[in-house]
Structure formats: C-alpha cells, structure tokens
C-alpha cells in the first residue's frame, strides 16, 4: 500500500463518517411533502377575494362596452355633421324647421 492509499485508508477506517439520526429519511420525506405545491390551490381562495375579482372584471367589461358605445356615438355625430356640410344645406335652417315643428 503506498503512502496515499494508507492515509486515505486511515481516514476512512479510523474516522468514519457519523451516522444521521434514525428519523432522518422520514423527516426528509415529510419536508418534501410539505414543500410540494398544492394542486388547484387557487380554488381554495377566500370568498371575498372571488367576489372582489368578479366585481372588478364586471366593472372593467361594462366600462369597456360603454367606451365602445360612446366612441361609436361620437363617430356617428361626426359623420352626420360632415355629411351635412358636404351636402351644401344650411344646417341652421334645418334646426329652425325642427324646432318649429314642436
């Protein structure tokens, strides 16, 4: 046996590695299970969070629809004004006729 082997053998045989505690494997498995992500964890959120989320989504949908409706209305008015101008008619006469009909 050469010098190197003798030293490593001395260390391995005369100073062996200490054993882990008897419960080490079981504790490691328990720790692993505790750190595993829970499936469908989002389903277990409190009800108030669900209600708040639904409310926010509803409000944003309604707001988006109203913006869309207003945008269409604005476009219609703009188109009507341009149409009137391009037709050459006097818009004030039309207004007087409309008011006089009431």
């Amino acid at each position, binding site marked *: 046996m050469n010098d190197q082997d003798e*030293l490593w053998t001395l*260390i391995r045989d005369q100073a062996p*590695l200490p054993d882990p505690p008897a419960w*080490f494997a079981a504790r*490691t498995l328990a720790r*692993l299970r505790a750190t595993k992500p829970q499936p469908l964890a989002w389903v277990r959120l409190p009800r108030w969070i669900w209600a708040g989320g639904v409310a926010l989504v509803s409000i944003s949908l309604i707001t988006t629809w109203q913006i869309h409706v207003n945008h269409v209305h604005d476009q219609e008015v703009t188109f009507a004004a341009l149409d009137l101008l391009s037709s050459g008619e006097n818009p004030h006469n039309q207004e007087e006729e409309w008011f006089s009909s009431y």
Partner: protein
Amino acid sequence: MTEADPTDFELMERIAQGDDAAFQMLVERYQREVYGTIVRMLGDPTEAEDLAQQVFIRVHRAAPRYKPSAQFRTWLFTILRNLVFNESRRRSKSKSIPLISAEEEEGGNHQDWADVDQKNPSDETVDRERMKHINAAIAELPETHRMAVMLKAHQDLSYEEIALVMKISVSATKSILFRARETLRRKLIEYLSK
C-alpha cells in the same frame, strides 16, 4: 446493494414519476454519506441535518430532468458541494459571534467537530482519541482542501470526478490533494507506518 435493489437511475426514474417510496429508498441509501460529509464540512450536526435534507429535496426536484451523463454519486456530491459552499459564504458574511454557553463559562469543553461522533459508539475498533485527532486535523484544512479530502478518502472518487464536483481542473484537484495530504501526513505521522 443486492442484485434485486434498483439502481440509482431506476430510482430517479421512479422519483420523477412521483414515487415517494423510491425517494425514501434513495435517501436511505445515501443519507450517511451526505449527512456525514456535511457534518465534517460544517461542524454542526443540526445544520448538517437541515442541509442534507435540502440536498435530497433538490435531487427530487431535478429528477424529471436527470440524465445519467455521469455517475449519480458525482452529481449528488455536486449538489452537496454547492449547498455547503453557499452556507460557508453565508456564514462568513454574517460573522456572528456565538454566545458563550454556561458550560463554557464554567470552564467545560464546548462541543467541537471531533466530538460529533460521540453519539455513534457502534464501532469498537475505532480508537476514540485517534478519531478525534484525525477529525481535528481535517477540520483545520482550508475548505476546498477539506472537501477534496472527504471526496477522496470517504467516497473514493477519482481525480476527474472530484474535479467535476468541485468545478476545478484535474490538475488543480491533484495539487489540492497533494498539499492536503502533506499537511495531514505531518499531523498524523504517528498513525502512519512511515
């Protein structure tokens, strides 16, 4: 390991499929090597237990991606090395001064690394004093030297495998082991034949 025992690769395949029994088998197979190495590196059995658990949990997380390109033991000790060195860096940054225990105040001996094995009186052929002396000599080595010695002496890894684990070149590994060996030979000369 008998012929009927699954190989490390087979266990890793089963772990990747969610087999907890396979994971427990793997832990039991390597727990002494992992825990024991960390104790020798850090000197604290409680921290060693925590870190050793982290090693195995990382192994479990990596199981779906594990490819047997190298020996499983080499890969396992690469994870161990990363965690141990991270912990050492964290300790050196915090540089906390330990509180003096009542025992120390009374002049008693505080537990050092060599005393860790007092809870393992199983092997009567092991001379307690000799073991203490050897462990103390290893504990005084620089961290990289200590890790290389642990991998060589207790795991019997080759220079190439040690280089892989420690992320250094083979020539650097040989140089580290040479210097560590010279230091240990001087300190342990009474236990060596020459």
